[in-house]
């Protein structure tokens, strides 16, 4: 019964989205305050409630282990712990698509409630969001039904893929989807603004908070995924330039460009067309990401199973969204207006450079990700493009962008020509720690790119510290202080990520050794002793747990698990962390060594300063959150300033612009 109700609710949400699209469109034509506009908002509400209830029913089916539903049977098992029964609801294709759709609907409702101030623009944006939701709900209802029945119902279920049974993975997809899908709100506002012929500045102001929120969430989602890959996949890497990772990285890069260019457009009217274009393409790339992950066209370590039919659907949605967005852009970009001019040393110029570098990096990543696919379609000899390509092309561009980043905060808007006063000259001292870090990296024999990234990381940290030191006092209003702090935190986060990444790229090689209990090995100057291996079974798996003592003190316990339901073996990595970095241990199967002794294959690695990556990502997310808070507290600055240039309410950047 639940399945039938769920199916009905999905269909209801689909119809509500169509109603939302049409009614809001009509409402926008009538100025945005008519009954049609209100009805469109009500339809958005119905879609949210229906999709939310459907999702809840799916979760309940998982908790009840209702294996008469094919999706539950394929992704759950009676013996699975409750948390993973629940997270199984979004652990596979259909369920995660339902979550995706629900979030789309939520953003539709969000736009209707707290969207752009201009009523007509708001109704139009709700309509576009409705269109985007309609596409995905159609996909859900007609080609990815999570409530499909299976007959006869299996007794036990196939189990969620064991490597997905992890607390981090339970929250990674929702974060990621809020990011991916949140970019749809920026798309909807941008498209609506083009239809309404809104000016570029007002439009940038309207879409900026949505872009900022989505991008921050996307950052958190990607960071959680990288962290999970680091300790769960057991290969010791956190970023593989895998197509699935690239699929999330491309919208992230463009989202990062967007949250910066939207500032320049909102404050100064600079590059309005570019900002709107970014808002459109960032979401299109989100859909492209969904296509790459879900169609199985690329060889990837985390691909969903091959399903060409799904791919065709997603390509269709990609096509409709892209054609609608870009056609509007081509027709109406002229109405966005031109900003005031600026000089090459102004903040606009630096934001422009940042955007150029981020966008080009996204392009380079896209070429590397899609080229093998293109070659396959052409029927040429199949190729793969691996990490060496991305390391040599994308990484230098990102290092360059990070090198410019700290200076941007010190550039005045418009006329530029930062004339360093005596106070600012002290900044030269900051080059001392930067040089120190570079020398340290060279002394450790780091590769060239790692030396550069390390130096840039230190440079960014110093710049962020100075940004707070100089601008905090000058910012009079609370919102302005929040904005400065947010910016400095996010930029410091980038610095930490660069440092951590550089350190990890300079790590010593991994060591594989067959150890019998009682024997030791050494990595990075630390001795590892295998003390014992004993059985440690869990609720739905059998496990061998090794006890390895590091330097005679702390103990690390890697495991090797066997999940009978999925007939799959996994390794649970053991981590010994301190400030210097992580000792990373995984244990393989037992086998008889050449000398006839039973030994366990132990893989040891040392990841120096890897905590900096986590801290960096955390700071970027915090910074994004603070910037969003500051932006919401400050209201719409463009309008405030148009009225009165030096009003105290004049927001974060008005205060900053005077200060710098």
């Amino acid at each position: 019964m639940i399945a039938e109700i769920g199916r009905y609710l999905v269909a209801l949400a689909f119809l509500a989205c169509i109603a939302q699209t049409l009614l809001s469109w009509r409402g926008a034509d009538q100025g945005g305050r008519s009954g049609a506009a209100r009805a469109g908002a009500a339809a958005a509400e119905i879609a949210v409630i229906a999709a939310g209830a459907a999702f809840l029913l799916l979760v309940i089916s998982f908790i009840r282990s209702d294996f008469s539903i094919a999706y539950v049977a394929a992704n759950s098992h009676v013996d699975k712990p409750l948390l993973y029964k629940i997270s199984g609801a979004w652990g596979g294709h259909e369920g995660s698509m339902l979550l995706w759709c629900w979030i789309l609907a939520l953003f539709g409702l969000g736009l209707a409630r707290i969207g752009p101030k201009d009523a007509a623009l708001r109704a139009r944006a709700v309509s576009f969001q409705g269109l985007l939701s309609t596409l995905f709900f159609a996909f859900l209802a007609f080609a990815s039904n999570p409530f499909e029945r299976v007959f006869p119902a299996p007794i036990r279920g196939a189990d969620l893929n064991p490597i997905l049974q992890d607390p981090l993975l339970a929250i990674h997809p929702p974060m990621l989807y809020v990011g991916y899908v949140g970019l749809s709100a920026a798309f909807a506002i941008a498209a609506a603004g083009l239809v309404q012929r809104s000016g570029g500045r007002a439009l940038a102001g309207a879409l900026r908070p949505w872009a900022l929120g989505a991008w921050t969430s996307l950052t958190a989602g990607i960071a959680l995924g990288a962290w999970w890959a680091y300790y769960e996949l057991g290969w010791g890497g956190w970023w593989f330039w895998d197509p699935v990772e690239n699929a999330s990285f491309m919208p992230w890069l463009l989202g990062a460009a967007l949250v910066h260019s939207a500032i320049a457009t909102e404050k100064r009217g600079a590059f309005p067309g570019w900002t709107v274009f970014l808002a459109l393409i960032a979401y299109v790339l989100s859909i492209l990401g969904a296509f790459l992950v879900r169609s199985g066209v690329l060889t990837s370590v985390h691909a969903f199973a091959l399903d060409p039919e799904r791919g065709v659907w997603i390509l269709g949605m990609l096509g409709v969204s892209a054609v609608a967005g870009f056609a509007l852009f081509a027709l109406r970009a002229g109405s966005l207006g031109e900003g005031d001019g600026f000089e090459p040393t102004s903040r606009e110029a630096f934001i422009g450079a940042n955007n150029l570098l981020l966008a080009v990096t996204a392009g380079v990543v896209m070429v590397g990700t899609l080229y093998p696919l293109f070659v396959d379609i052409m029927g040429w000899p199949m190729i793969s493009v691996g990490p060496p390509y991305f390391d040599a092309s994308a990484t230098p561009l990102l290092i360059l962008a990070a090198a410019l980043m700290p200076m941007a905060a010190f550039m005045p808007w418009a006329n530029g020509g930062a004339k360093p006063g005596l106070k600012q000259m002290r900044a030269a001292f900051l080059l001392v720690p930067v040089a120190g870090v570079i020398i340290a990296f060279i002394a450790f024999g780091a590769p060239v790119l790692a030396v550069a990234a390390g130096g840039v990381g230190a440079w960014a940290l110093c710049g962020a510290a100075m940004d707070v030191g100089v601008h905090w006092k000058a910012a009079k209003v609370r919102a302005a202080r929040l904005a400065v702090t947010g910016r400095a935190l996010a930029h410091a986060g980038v610095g930490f990520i660069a440092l951590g990444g550089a350190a990890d790229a300079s790590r010593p090689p991994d060591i594989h050794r067959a150890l019998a209990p009682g024997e030791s090995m050494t990595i990075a100057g630390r001795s590892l002793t295998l003390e014992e291996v004993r059985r440690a079974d869990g609720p739905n798996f059998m496990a061998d747990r090794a006890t390895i003592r590091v330097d005679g003190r702390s103990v690390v316990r890697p495991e090797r698990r066997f999940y009978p339901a999925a007939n799959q073996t996994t390794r649970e990595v053991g981590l010994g962390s301190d400030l210097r970095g992580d000792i990373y241990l995984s244990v393989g199967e037992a086998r008889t060594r050449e000398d006839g002794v039973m030994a366990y294959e132990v893989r040891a690695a040392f990841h120096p300063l890897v905590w900096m990556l986590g801290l960096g990502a955390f700071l970027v997310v915090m910074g994004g959150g603070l910037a969003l808070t500051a932006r919401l507290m400050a209201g719409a600055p463009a309008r405030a300033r148009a009225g009165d240039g030096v009003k105290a309410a004049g927001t974060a950047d008005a205060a900053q612009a005077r200060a710098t």
Partner: protein
Amino acid sequence: MRQARKRLWMIAAGAAVLIVAAALAFTAMRDAMVFFYSPAMVAENPPPPGQRVRVGGLVVNGSVERPASGGANFTVTDGRADIRITFAGSLPDLFREGQGIVADGVFDEDARFTAQTVLAKHDESYMPPEVARALRESGYWQDGPPGTGQYAGPGAETRR
């Protein structure tokens, strides 16, 4: 004048970055492009020894040997030809006989393949697209409904 100057700056900077990025991408692509060879392709026209390539196929039942010194040796097939692979690391947990895998590495003078990485998929029913295509070309692939194509060559019945 101002607008024109601004445009000039932006266009010059944009062009410079694009050219540098294109150059970077082009050289990187030349070095990093790894060609995929099916066992049949290797038999007909082997890649030069020492060149980094990808090979793939189904792991032949009973071919996996785990020497006491660590690592593993195994054979992959596309039904027409075989490749013997030596791998020094520890095999992925999902590695199983009869499964489609892809390996990165180099051939030596004696046509033995030494793998640096072996990719087996998270999902045991997943077939790497390269392997699926190689099997289709060798005629040992049975297209089924989406996602359920399967190997249909010699020994198919023993592979589950």
